[in-house]
């Protein structure tokens, strides 16, 4: 499935980017590479773009561009809070 099909609150992992995507370079530079886990945080008030969270970064992209990102759903939390896992670095305590 692709990123634009995810709902708010769902978590997923990037599987790849469509090779012909015009935004591939940009998406790669922003860190959405294969294996990156992210969560869909919210949709803009008017329904587009979407905001995702990963590696401490809040990234917004239009559904149009989100459709170029191949993903695998890995779960959902249901709320709008960013996920705490999948961040780089060791986790202390918890």
């Amino acid at each position, binding site marked *: 499935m692709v990123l634009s099909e995810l709902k708010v609150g769902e978590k997923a992992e990037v599987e790849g980017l469509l090779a012909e995507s015009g935004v591939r370079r940009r998406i790669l*530079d*922003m860190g959405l590479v294969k294996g990156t886990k992210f969560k869909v945080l919210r949709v803009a008030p008017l329904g587009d773009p979407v905001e995702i969270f990963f590696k401490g970064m*809040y990234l*917004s992209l239009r559904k149009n561009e989100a459709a170029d990102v191949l993903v695998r759903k890995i779960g959902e939390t249901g709320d*709008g809070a960013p996920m705490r896992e999948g961040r780089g*670095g060791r986790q202390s305590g918890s």
Partner: protein
Amino acid sequence: MGMRREIRVALAGNPNSGKSSLFNGLTGSHQKVGNFSGVTIEKYEGYVDHQGYRIRFVDLPGTYSLTPYSPEELVTRKFLIEESPDMVVNVVEGPNLERNLLLTTQLMEMEVDLLVAINMYDEVEERGIEIETEQLRGLLGCPVIPTSAKKKQGLEALLDHVVRVFEGDIDIRKNKLGFRPEVDGAIREITGLLRHEPDLSRFNPHWLAIKLLENDREVYGLVRDYPLWLKVERVLQRVLGETERLYRTDPEVVITEDRYAFIRGVMQECVLTPGEGRVSLTDRIDRIVLNRVLGLPIFFFIVWLVFQLTFTLGTPLMDGLDLFFGTIADAVSPLLVNETLRSVIVDGVIAGVGGVLIFLPNIVLLFLGLSFLEASGYMARAAFVVDKVMHRFGLHGKSFIPLITGFGCSIPAIMATRTLKSPSDRLATIMIIPFMSCGAKLPVHILLAGAFFEPSVAGNVVFGIYMFGVVVGLLSALLMKKTVLKSESEPFVMELPPYRWPTARSVFWQSNIKAMMYVRKAGTIILLAVLLIWVASNYPKNPAIDAALERQIATIEAGELSRGAKDVAIADAENSASAEKLEYSVAGRAGRLMEPLIRPLGFDWRIGVALVTGLAAKEVVVSTMGTIYSLGETDETSPELKTILKNDPVFDRATALSLMVFVLLYIPCVAAIGVMRKEVGTWQAVALYSGYALTAAWVFSFLTYRLANLFL
């Protein structure tokens, strides 16, 4: 006194890494703003004297990467290659080290002398994040210095390191990032081939090899014309086949993935992030600010708030400045015996420049607001909230930022469109920026709204004018996108930076830059325009009018009226003589010539004159009206322009509204046109635009005038 030795240091870092705050903290007041050669991206330079050296910093534009994706990235790259600074300080955002390190890896690939400043270190400590800097230093192979621009910590240490690196006191190892074996092999092979071409020796062959594998068009262009290209191409083809077979993707993706793999390793080794129990401030704010229901109202409220603050706080300051210039004029007047000279200086220079400078408080306040929104992180949210609408009009959410900057001044706004990648998005945005009522048009709006509407309504009238400009602009963008600018729009992939309370210093600094731009304009173009207007509205002289006036005054004096009545009659005579003189002058004739064209809009020839001179700069519309109307007065101490306008028979509410609309929409000032020409590349496009703007201005002013006459 011996010459200080210089160290040239470039500051590179992601947007929102606090790079500019650090630059400010390091260089204090020794700063200047310029442009990178050939482009209109602002270049901030500054220096600080440290341990006998003059360390010169260049603050490069914020970038996430060094691929040629955006003009900022190209500029950064070009600067590093062509200007070869002595070293690069890579400013990284401490609390979000992971994503900031991508740029670091790319700087490492360029094999520059690198220092990493982990900025916002105060926040790192506050959040309980532990960064093992010694480990990090080992992995990156370069000095790592914790800094906090906000708390002014680590700045001395950073400067010490700069000096030590320069003196060769610290060894920079220039670690090489390892990629997958197929790619590494190809890099070695290509590097070997490139070494044989002496023309390319000014580039680092290792870096060129990586860029070629990344399919970098710029670098392709550099290498393609040399005979060794055939061999290089063979290697590229081979490695493409290999990565396709092994990893089902191309080397570009492999290289980026491997950079991130390296970064992941660094993070694992060096950074300990506490399991965050509480929701971060940014999340809490965004739950409200980007809420599906509240998002848009909050957006409009914030924009409205910025404008309200600008005006309510600005007005008393404005009145103060007004008083100040009045005092100067009064003080200077008696000193100038020569009547012509006095008129030039008091009516021309002081009145003109003063009339322009009194709007400085408004401009400073507006830019304080805009800089605050930008630095706090809200500006990106605004783009997020409005992108759908902007996209519908064929624009990009990012167009919003240049457009809102256009409320301040079209010139920086037009320059700001460089963040838009697609040429058609850029062109459309540039073309509608002048419809966003700029700071210089504000004087016209304030004057007219203030003169013809009660104080309680005037603010809303000005707000309405601003909104009208936005609507006309958006519709024009749509029209352009549907007709002359049909093409793909730019993708929208944008970071929403974490909210931060901006340092007062950086907000004031930004605002100060804009204020200085405005003042410089006032001191040069506007002063010149004002003097030209003075000449144009005083020459050629017609002695017959003066003679007639003298005869008339003599007749009145000889008459049987009371002293008071005589004075009134003389004043009237002098008034009409002044008007006749102006009509006879160059400006008057130009205005007369165009009067038939603007008559349907409710304008007379005097407004025509103001509109023409307003091309020099929009605030000149006000100063011209000041000059024209106060010259038409008998009294040397000219009363407030507002009162004169209110009592002028030509002016009523409908005319005032019509004029506001015309000034809002017609061609921008010459300076903005110059910048526009530079950005769009051809005069034809500018001419086409000018025709469009004039037509739009005429049509909407006509409608405004007619409708206002019906309803007001």
